[in-house]
């Protein structure tokens, strides 16, 4: 994500770049890679054990894809696990074992990995496609804004507070929405996400999580179609 984003930004005027909130991560990427592949020797296992060699995670096991996520978002999550505002028996001990420097380096490293989506030009959603409709238009009768209003065009993430959803494993996405509902995840700024998680129906949760999980493939398909035309 970040690579494509930076490339796009450098084409734009400097003034625009200043407004995007894309910060260059503070941590040391090489050091981050080292910990990610070997652990920190103080209790944090190699992240790659679960999140995979490329950070893409594992759908079946519920290990999220963390490649290309914003560094500030990543470091906030690691702090939140350590503090318990986001509860995970798996991540909590690792997060606690990391020093501040480890966290910054790991976050910089994972931000630097390629994520699968970038924004495309506006395209009207299909009312018959429930997931796509929720992502682009929401369900205002039930006070649910469009997910992309906060998570960005194509769910590619916005700045340092709104993570990318596109390409994330459906099982993980679903798990997080349920975690907000049952209170085990209680770390969103001003509860911006919680209310939305509460108002989604079971059926909407399935539709939207499957939509985002499949989005990169779908977009690639569309791009190919265009080229072949």
């Amino acid at each position, binding site marked *: 994500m970040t690579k*494509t*984003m930076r490339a*796009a*930004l450098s084409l*734009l*005027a*400097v*003034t*625009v770049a*200043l*407004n*995007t*909130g894309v910060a260059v991560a503070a941590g040391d990427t090489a050091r981050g890679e080292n910990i990610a592949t070997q652990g920190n020797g103080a209790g944090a296992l190699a992240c790659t054990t679960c999140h995979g060699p490329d950070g893409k995670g594992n759908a079946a096991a519920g290990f999220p894809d963390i490649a290309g996520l914003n560094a500030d978002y990543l470091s906030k999550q690691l702090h939140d696990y350590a503090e318990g505002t986001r509860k995970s028996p798996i991540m909590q001990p690792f997060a606690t074992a990391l020093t501040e420097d480890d966290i910054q380096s790991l976050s910089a490293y994972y931000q630097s990995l390629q994520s699968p989506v*970038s*924004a495309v030009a*506006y395209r*009207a959603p299909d*009312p*018959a496609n429930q997931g796509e409709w929720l992502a682009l*238009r*929401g369900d*205002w009768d039930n*006070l*649910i*804004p469009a997910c992309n*209003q*906060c998570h*960005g*065009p194509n769910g*590619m*993430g*916005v*700045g340092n*507070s709104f993570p990318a959803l596109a390409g994330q494993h459906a099982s993980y996405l679903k798990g997080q929405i349920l975690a907000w509902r049952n209170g085990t995840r209680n770390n969103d*700024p*001003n*509860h*911006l996400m919680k*209310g*939305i998680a509460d108002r989604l129906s079971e059926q909407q949760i399935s539709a939207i999580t499957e939509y985002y999980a499949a989005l990169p493939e779908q977009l690639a398909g569309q791009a190919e179609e265009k080229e072949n035309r």
Partner: protein
Amino acid sequence: MNLCKSFLSVAAISLPVLVVSTLVHAAEPEVDYQKQLPAAPEGQITFEPPQERDIPDNQYGDMVRKGRDLFVNTQQLRGKNVFNGQNCVNCHLDAGRIASSAPMWAAFGMYPAYRGKNDKVNTLSERLQGCFTYSMNGIPPEAGDETLVAMETYFHWLSTGAPINQALPGRGYTKLEKPEDGYDREHGAKLYTEQCAVCHGDDGSGQEVAGQVVFPPLWGDGAYNWGAGMHRVNTAAGFIKANMPLGKPDSLSNQDAWDLAAFVNSHERPQDPRRRNQESLDSTANTFHNHDGFYGKEVEGKRLGDHDNYGENPGVASK
């Protein structure tokens, strides 16, 4: 305010083109289009616009969809009719369907409207042109332009079954009683940092991703200008209370909404375009700003609106 470097470079490139092409003046905005709407009638909001899956598959339907797309993605007219970072949907939420944000189905049947102030009848097209001039800091499409036709066709479809020439409950923005002790922009500043900056940015310039506006700018060059209805404190207070923070409607107290509106609207933004035909800031303020706003007022030692920065708007349309 960053007197847009990008605009200057654009201007430099397009200047020769402008000189060669016929210069046409932007429609002279002699009327106060952005005058506050009358209060909506009391009562339950019962009108429901049709569902988008029911837009017919014919040429009418195509025009409806075109109008909707222009309404939610008005940035496609950037540099032509739009000269800031706004889309119509930013202030008229859910593609102009939501009752608490001046819905288009409540507007459609109310035009043409007689305006005592200038003893004239104003059409819906003129109303839309006003929105382009002020909210979009733009140069309005001319009457009959396909942009206006498409938008009006979309509003016509949204209003299916709505009465004509009869105000509906839910029109305009919620009117919020002004707090007895007035408003406090310093308290507004504190609330802004806590509740709004995560999206709209500490400096009010909003956020973009890959060149697309996600969170609209609230002040500065990318924002609505000094003539826009949203720059009035009372109007913004009503909007904020009912719609912000996004996804948490009606979570703020009346007082908080007023304080926030005062804070947001006491920042610089592009000049009121009517200033171009006025002698001074004072005459512009006296003629057009007899309402709850900060135009021409002194805030933190500086007089607001005392500049000739029209944002990206060049003031003339290229043909």
